[in-house]
């Protein structure tokens, strides 16, 4: 029976010889690659496939989620009480800071000659759960469970409580892929708080390290210097903490210094991500959010070869 059906199937078109079959597959994948490189119609194919892939991503993320939930459940009440006290303390400090901040903001608006106080910078924010993470040397990405249906757009800024995490690069119906600032393809325009010096921080493929490959050896940078986003580039707003310089090495033979930084956000063990929508009228908002959605993601800044080890 089995043999008969097998034999009957043999001459049908379904069983093309391996050669032609491979030819078809190869041509198909080459065409896909060609258009994917140029963001052609393959975006919609990817969108559909991403919807199909979402259950798999959830399944892949589930062991981690389960582990997080279990450890959360097993924490003792004393630990929770201690944490609660700590959080209350922090909340008090933060609200004090916020009071001062509001006064400063009004003063700033007056000084700039603006008639009324500025609208809030972040017009909307949304927490998203991390369902999958890929923190390898070649890619530093997270997949979160909010997508097109929740108005998530491409090139959207993602932060955690401590600082900048990255930007969305691919949007599915219910999921979005976030390229972290430590992805080797990612670059973020930054500014030093102490000196106002502007440069670009590039990912290294290690989720606890950033590289600053474009600083000349004579630039005024010290270990421990804080970096915030400069607001250039049209994706991130100005003033979000990015990281702290951990290593500044001057090699007299070279034009550029070797600079490393530690990201402010805890990229490797965040369970949740905050996605932000900005009020375009605010001066600290990204240059043009509309532009940002149309541009290819502001990523590709290749480090100068030979300048860094």
């Amino acid at each position: 029976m089995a043999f008969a059906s097998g034999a009957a199937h043999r001459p049908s078109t379904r069983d093309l010889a391996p050669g032609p079959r491979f030819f078809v597959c190869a041509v198909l994948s080459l065409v896909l690659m060609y258009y994917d490189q140029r963001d052609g119609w393959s975006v919609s194919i990817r969108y559909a496939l991403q919807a199909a892939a979402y259950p798999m991503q959830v399944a892949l993320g589930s062991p981690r989620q389960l582990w997080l939930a279990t450890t959360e459940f097993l924490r003792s009440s004393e630990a929770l009480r201690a944490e609660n006290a700590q959080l209350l303390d922090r909340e008090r400090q933060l609200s004090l800071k916020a009071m001062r901040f509001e006064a400063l903001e009004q003063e700033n608006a007056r000084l700039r000659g603006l008639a009324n106080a500025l609208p809030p910078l972040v017009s909307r924010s949304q927490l998203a759960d991390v369902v999958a993470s890929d923190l390898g040397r070649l890619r530093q990405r997270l997949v979160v469970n909010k997508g097109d249906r929740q108005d998530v757009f491409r090139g959207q800024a993602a932060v955690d409580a401590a600082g900048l995490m990255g930007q969305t690069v691919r949007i599915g119906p219910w999921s979005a892929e976030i390229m972290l600032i430590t992805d080797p393809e990612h670059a973020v325009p930054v500014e030093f708080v102490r000196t106002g010096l502007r440069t670009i921080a590039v990912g290294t493929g290690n989720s606890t390290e950033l590289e600053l490959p474009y600083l000349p050896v004579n630039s005024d940078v010290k270990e421990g210097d804080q970096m915030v986003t400069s607001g250039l580039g049209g994706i991130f707003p100005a003033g979000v903490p990015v990281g702290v310089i951990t290593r500044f090495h001057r090699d007299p033979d070279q034009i550029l210094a070797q600079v490393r930084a530690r990201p402010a956000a805890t990229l490797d063990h965040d369970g949740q991500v905050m996605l932000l929508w900005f009020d375009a009228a605010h001066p600290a908002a990204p240059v043009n959010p509309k532009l940002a959605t149309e541009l290819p993601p502001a990523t590709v800044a290749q480090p100068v070869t030979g300048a860094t080890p």
Partner: protein
Amino acid sequence: MSFAAPRESRLLVYVTALAALLLTLLPLPQMVSVFWPQFLVLTVLYWSTMTPHASGMLVAFLAGLMLDVLQGTQLGQHAFAMSLVAYLAIRLHLLTRAKPLFEQSLFVVAALLIYEGALWAIDGWSGRDANSWSRWLHIPTGALLWPIVAGLLGRLHAPR
């Protein structure tokens, strides 16, 4: 070697490919994930070698496409590498099928090298970061695990 019932074994191929896809993408600590074998390629190799008529290159292509979407690589990159490996395995199945498992592992090394080489070339051409040596480290583990993978899959489709 008898012909397996096509429909049944096709289903088995799809199910095991899905399992292997999930196994390949399992989130792991970096120290482990560098050496983590590409189970999907091993599975595609197995089915292409053992049931060259039933297992489709289509499965390899679709599985590669899913890998592209899940890993966020260039759409078609893994699909191409995967169907290339499947094609070679189908073409050479008479050569490799009857060999002892240890010897098959050598063919697996060759297949994995071709697979990773194709990915590497595409990464390079499309302007991605391609010069990390750690991408090749899954090849020895994959070859070492081949006897286990082949044994398990063999048990599934033809209980002897």
